[in-house]
């Protein structure tokens, strides 16, 4: 039985156009590359996630700053941050048994035991699965709701768009929309991150009198309280945002929660 070293030398000594050597080199290069990439990715993941989390927090803070009078309101209410609550999306009730600090909606959406598969006809935002619970951010004063912020996400043109939708106490008026994560085409769809575009959202209304979700991004100029100007050259990114809001304000999204808030209050 030859030693492994001798086998290795015999392998290297084979001619370069030999089939076994070609195959062996291909496997080895792929294997080593895969190990290097995986090790780096796994080692650096906690750092990267910390950055993403800090970024998300900063965007919520920035969103609060864009809302007129929100800081003053918060000072009056004696809080310096929004309160995070976990909501069960199926019945719209709070789920106090889940710790908001450790709940990861993104991870939960991938596991079968903490999420549901969406029926294709309801899955307008292209999500495939939806977590059973979602964090919402609330601002209240003396038991009255002042602001509710809902995290939403959906498929855009070439990436998953994640955003925060802030609603006024009437639960039908948009207070702000902030895109927290996207990878759309730089210069076109990626402009949904620009404050100028996000400034179009405050004051828009979600549903019409009959309760149909009407809010949408339109091509060209918006008309009426439900429409928002699209970005030229980024129609599919705009459609992605429309679908995302349609989904998350619908029955598989936050509709049960919003209905319950309207009926019962906090």
């Amino acid at each position, binding site marked *: 039985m030859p030693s492994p070293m001798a086998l290795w030398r015999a392998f290297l000594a084979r001619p370069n156009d030999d089939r076994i050597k070609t195959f062996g080199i291909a496997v080895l290069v792929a294997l080593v590359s895969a190990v290097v*990439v995986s090790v*780096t990715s796994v080692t*650096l993941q906690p750092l990267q996630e910390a950055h993403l989390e800090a970024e998300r927090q900063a965007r919520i803070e920035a969103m609060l700053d864009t809302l007129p009078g929100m800081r003053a309101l918060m000072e009056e209410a004696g809080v310096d941050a929004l309160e995070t609550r976990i909501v069960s999306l199926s019945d719209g009730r709070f789920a106090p048994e889940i710790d908001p600090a450790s709940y990861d909606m993104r991870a939960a959406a991938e596991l079968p035991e903490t999420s549901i598969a969406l029926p294709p006809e309801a899955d307008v935002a292209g999500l495939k699965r939806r977590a059973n619970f979602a964090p919402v951010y609330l601002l209240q004063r003396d038991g009255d709701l002042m602001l509710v912020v809902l995290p939403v996400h959906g498929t855009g043109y070439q990436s998953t768009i994640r955003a925060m939708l802030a609603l006024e106490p009437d639960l039908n008026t948009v207070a702000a929309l902030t895109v927290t994560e996207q990878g759309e085409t*730089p210069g076109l769809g990626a402009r949904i991150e620009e404050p100028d575009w996000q400034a179009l959202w405050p004051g828009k209304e979600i549903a019409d009198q009959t309760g149909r979700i009407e809010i949408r991004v339109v091509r060209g100029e918006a008309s009426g309280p439900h429409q928002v100007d699209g970005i030229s050259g980024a129609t599919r990114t705009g459609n992605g945002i429309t679908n995302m809001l349609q989904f998350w304000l619908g029955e598989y999204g936050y509709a049960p929660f919003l209905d319950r808030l309207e009926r019962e209050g906090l």
Partner: protein
Amino acid sequence: MSLRHHITRPLIEQNPITLQILGICSALAVTTSLTTALTMSVALTLVLCGSAAVISLIRHHIPGSIRLIVQITIIASMVIVIDEFLQAYAFQISQRLSIFVGLIVTNCLVLGRAEAFAMRNPVLPSVLDGLGNGLGYSLILLIVGAIRELLGAGTLMGRTILTTQAEGGWFQPLDLMQLAPSAFFIIALLIWVIRTVWTRQVETTEYPLRTGAERRQP
């Protein structure tokens, strides 16, 4: 050729961007500011040196039939590793570079040097060749980045150099400089200057235009 030449030749004489016209895509995309241009330059130089070292090291055992696949696998892995490091340690800049770090893989410059040089030369000259080409690419990127940021926003590395009118100064930023075509203009002007000084780089016309009496009648 001495080792020093591997580094100095690609700077101007054999510059990958202005002579070989390689890597133009990223040169347009990431040069809106000096910071992104600098980060991209460092990332590309690292990939060039690293891939040159690895490919040169195993060059005797790379089967000819799959050599491009092996090269691109090695290059792609290094690009992913560098992208991961940027996302972990330079998050803001990696957000601004977005997909363009990943696109180093498709940069003809990297595969070109691997195939043309590292496959045929020992490790040290290959690494130096990678370094030289990386620096040549960086030089052009930094010049273009500096011009675009200075004229387009009045800043350099984010620091105000020319106070814009919006901030009460005199400088009116050129919006064109923030758009990709301006990089074409600047690179073209650089090529013009370089070929005026180093006349050896001027290419002979393959198909001269026929004018006047020579012109063929339709």
